[in-house]
């Protein structure tokens, strides 16, 4: 199982911790010294480089902890993630309450360096550690009638100031079509940079679907349901015109309030240039999932 997909974004597996902690300074030094040189165009080369861990841990949308980008880093510490169990229900062979350890047992944790594109037109590159969702689904046994997978985020009102304020309806829910869920790019991530995931990033286990806008990649999952009908998705319920069920990254379909043609890589400083957004966030291998679909209609 696993290793079905090969990274086009690479990082030396053995990068010492001290190095990735100081990656930005090192890269700046290398670039200044002209040590970075290859046949890749400048833009693609920039895309190869994961964001430093402090970017990934301090610029987050996790409305359970507040709407400010730095709120999750400030408030997420209160979330209780041990013990953690996931309710698996619906059209599966092995329903029930799975402990995180049981669910992960025997599965291959891989590093996946993915582009991460937020619907708000910013982006990062994140070196996730996780397992393919397909492997988890194989383990719980998907019934042939199942067409969609639904996910739910934990709700701990006493530990989550945003939940008490009801900025959006909670629990946060999301969903994927079964073929999207089974795609080898789709992972359940448990770590970043080889370390256990920080709570503000969706610890202890979250979805990562790199060709969709970030809000599809639901955090801190406590429930996975296999269902026949398209499940509800939080932002889609709040504003269906702005947030479609599919929400594939698409530079040609604008958000009603802003353009999706370009994005800004987080971490580039005050004069960071915008870069062109890529179709399916640069993962053209998923295009076949949507063959014959009008992506402007099913956005």
């Amino acid at each position, binding site marked *: 199982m696993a290793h079905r997909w090969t990274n086009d974004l690479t990082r030396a597996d053995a990068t010492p911790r001290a190095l990735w902690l100081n990656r930005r300074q090192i890269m700046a030094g290398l670039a200044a010294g002209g040590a970075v040189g290859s046949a890749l165009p400048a833009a693609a080369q920039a895309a190869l480089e994961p964001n430093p861990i402090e970017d990934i841990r301090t*610029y987050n949308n996790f409305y359970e902890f507040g709407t400010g*980008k730095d709120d999750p880093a400030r408030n997420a510490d209160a979330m209780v993630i041990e013990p953690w169990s996931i309710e698996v229900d619906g059209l599966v062979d092995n329903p029930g309450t799975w402990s995180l350890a049981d669910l992960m047992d025997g599965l291959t944790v891989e590093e996946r360096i993915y582009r991460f594109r937020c619907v708000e037109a910013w982006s990062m590159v994140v070196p996730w550690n996780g397992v393919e969702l397909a492997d988890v689904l194989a383990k719980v046994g998907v019934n042939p009638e199942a067409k969609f997978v639904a996910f739910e985020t934990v709700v701990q009102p006493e530990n989550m100031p945003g939940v008490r*304020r009801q900025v959006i309806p909670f629990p946060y829910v999301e969903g994927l079509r079964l073929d999207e869920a089974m795609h080898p790019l789709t992972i359940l991530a448990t770590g970043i940079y080889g370390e256990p995931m920080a709570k503000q990033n969706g610890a202890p286990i979250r979805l990562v679907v790199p060709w969709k806008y970030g809000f599809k990649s639901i955090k801190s999952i406590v429930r996975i349901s296999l269902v026949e009908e398209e499940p509800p998705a939080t932002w889609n319920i709040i504003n269906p015109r702005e947030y479609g069920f599919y929400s594939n990254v698409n530079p040609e379909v604008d958000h009603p309030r802003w353009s999706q043609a*370009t994005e*800004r890589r987080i971490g580039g400083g*005050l*004069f960071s*240039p915008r870069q062109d957004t890529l179709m399916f966030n640069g993962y053209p291998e998923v295009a076949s999932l949507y063959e014959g679909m009008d992506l402007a209609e099913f956005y």
Partner: protein
Amino acid sequence: MALADRINSLSRRLPTWPVYILVAAWVAWLFWLGLSGQLGPEPINTLERKYGLFALQLLVAGLAVTPLRTWTGVNLIRFRRAIGVSAFFVVLAHFSVWALLDVQRLGAIWADIVKRPYVTVGFLSFLLLIPLAMTSNTWSVRRLGPRWRQLHKLTYPALLLGGLHFWWLTKGWQWEPLLYLGGIVALLSLRIRLGARRRPTRARTV
């Protein structure tokens, strides 16, 4: 009224120019924080938001000067020009960060203004403030006479559009922009009532 009198006598002795200095220093300091990597990993967005919010706060403060005098007797009218002109300066900083650092391309700036309603109302608000900033000097007040008062009522639609701009750009049900919008509407409706009450007496005093 003792407290109000004390505040008034104190404020009469204070110069108004520090308002300009403090606001300009704050704008510059925040820019420096962004430049030196102290505004988090996305300084452009942070700067844009902080400038925008402070501009709105200053505009609301300017609008609150008259009702404050009417209802509490505290008279800060001497500071209103400094507050208003500083507010425009911060709006200009907000607009510049958005146009030059955020959107970056001239074509895209125009496209956003035309296509995105929240940008449109924000830009309209900015346009309305330009003649106000240009006429916020003693020479213009004298030259325009009663028309100056009429012209400066443009602050009302400018503030409404500014509040709308803030509310429109947020996601979900956030209380902060609603609070500002509610405050602006409340201050404006106070003015309408004040105006209605004061009108008969104005003929005598002018």
